[in-house]
């Protein structure tokens, strides 16, 4: 699965995107945040305050953290948007 990062997430993680192999028990967005948080620094630090981090699955904004991510090709993680 491809994870893509934007804005200060991208800067603080030092990566634009990466391919990850998720364990079988990572089923939902909430699970994904849990998994990211237990990775080495800077992940643990960046995802500590995960409730403000926004998620898009397949380029669709998803708010419900219980949404299943199985089969997603691309998941994007980013701060609240500041368009316009």
């Amino acid at each position, binding site marked *: 699965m491809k994870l*893509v990062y*934007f*804005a*200060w997430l*991208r800067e603080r993680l030092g990566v634009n995107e990466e391919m990850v192999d998720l364990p079988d028990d990572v089923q939902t967005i909430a699970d994904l945040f849990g998994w990211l948080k237990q990775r080495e620094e800077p992940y643990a630090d960046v995802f500590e305050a995960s409730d403000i981090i926004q998620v*898009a699955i397949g*380029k*669709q*904004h998803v708010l419900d953290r219980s949404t299943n991510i199985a089969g997603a090709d691309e998941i*994007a993680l*980013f*701060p*609240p*948007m*500041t*368009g*316009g």
Partner: protein
Amino acid sequence: MPEPRVLIQEEDFDIAAETKLLTGENKNIGAVVTFTGLCRDEDNRLSALELEHYPGMAEGEITRIAQEAITRFDLNGITAVHRYGKINPGENIVLVVAAARHRQAAFDGANFLMDFLKTRAPFWKKEHPRDGSTGDWVSAKDADDDALSKWLSE
């Protein structure tokens, strides 16, 4: 139903040309509202804004919201252009043009799309201060969420 015209681009836009393209020869349009968002220098504090975006998602989200504006306000048409990249103070960032038979629909259509763009379009702004220091990412504003909620509660 008219299809929105949505452009995500690095280059500047031409408001007059976009307006002409939107209204064309339609003589039942009575009102055109344009909104232009510009880069402020915040009382000379900033040398530029850097706009990052999520390609693909940006087009998709703005198109979806623009379609909703057409339906909701019975617009003759709507155009949205959002720039990315480095933008200097005084330069354009975003354009919305809404055309309708009557004035309030054109105002509401443009206002609605702008309120959604602020919090739902995948763009992020980074400040470049004039003093050469490392700039911050612009924070989302509660006021923008409030602006959005006025359309959701109707």
